[in-house]
């Protein structure tokens, strides 16, 4: 694939993450601030809360989307850094390593998300 297509996907993933990851960060870390905005968040890291989020379909979709977008965006960025430092004549080896790492992380992450969704449903 032409590099421009890969790069455009990278930028699209980044743009989506500004919204999605922004929401995720604010919910998980800025409880007090969100309280002022009228959104009360209680102990976002308590086990009951975590599993309650896990069983909701909308959080499932958000988590899966975040996982895929973040892995693609992040690993494309790592590939850029590697290509600029390793100086190979062809990019295929670097790209292959990055794709393998990405696939492992994606499979592992989606297993966790789906497994906890099913557990929460019980």
């Amino acid at each position, binding site marked *: 694939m032409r590099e421009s297509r890969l790069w455009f996907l990278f*930028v699209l993933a*980044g*743009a989506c*993450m*500004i919204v999605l*990851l*922004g929401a995720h*960060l604010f919910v998980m*870390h*800025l*409880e*007090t*601030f969100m309280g002022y905005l009228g959104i009360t968040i209680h102990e976002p*890291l308590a*086990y009951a809360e*975590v*599993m309650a989020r*896990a069983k909701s379909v909308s959080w499932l979709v958000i988590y899966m989307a975040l*996982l895929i977008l*973040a*892995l693609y965006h*992040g*690993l494309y*960025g*790592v590939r850029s*850094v590697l290509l600029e*430092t390793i100086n190979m004549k062809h990019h295929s080896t670097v790209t292959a390593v990055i794709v393998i790492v990405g696939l492992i*992380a994606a499979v*592992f*992450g989606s297993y*966790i998300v789906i*497994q*906890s969704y099913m*557990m929460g449903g019980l």
Partner: protein
Amino acid sequence: MRYNNRLGAKGWVIGGNYSIERYLYILHRVSGLALIFYLMCHLILTSFRIAGAPTWEAAMAFVSGPFFKVGEFLVMCAGVYHAINGLRLIIIELGYCIGKPERQEYPYTPSIKKQRPLMYLLMLVVAALVAVSVVDFFIM
């Protein structure tokens, strides 16, 4: 014998007296690498939820000290900076806010100067969000 004068990775940081965008570039790169490293750790840590409540509580207790609190704050800062500066990069890399090709008169106003108002505006947003995080993390 030629002397190889390529600056290497240190040239990303200290290349010379250039304008601020070159330092934003390396900060963007460092924050991005930090975030992908954090994402991998985050994936492993949050996977403990499927092992049941006690394991989850133990994992959360492990990362609850002041060291991890500061780490969490740094991740927040890296995320905020990377997101907002990334927005600026998307805008200018797609050719907006950098002006059009035109006849140049000395002193030149290249693209990097034309996007500077946008850069200052977005850096103010970063500063505001980091300030909110400081208040929320350490004061509230």
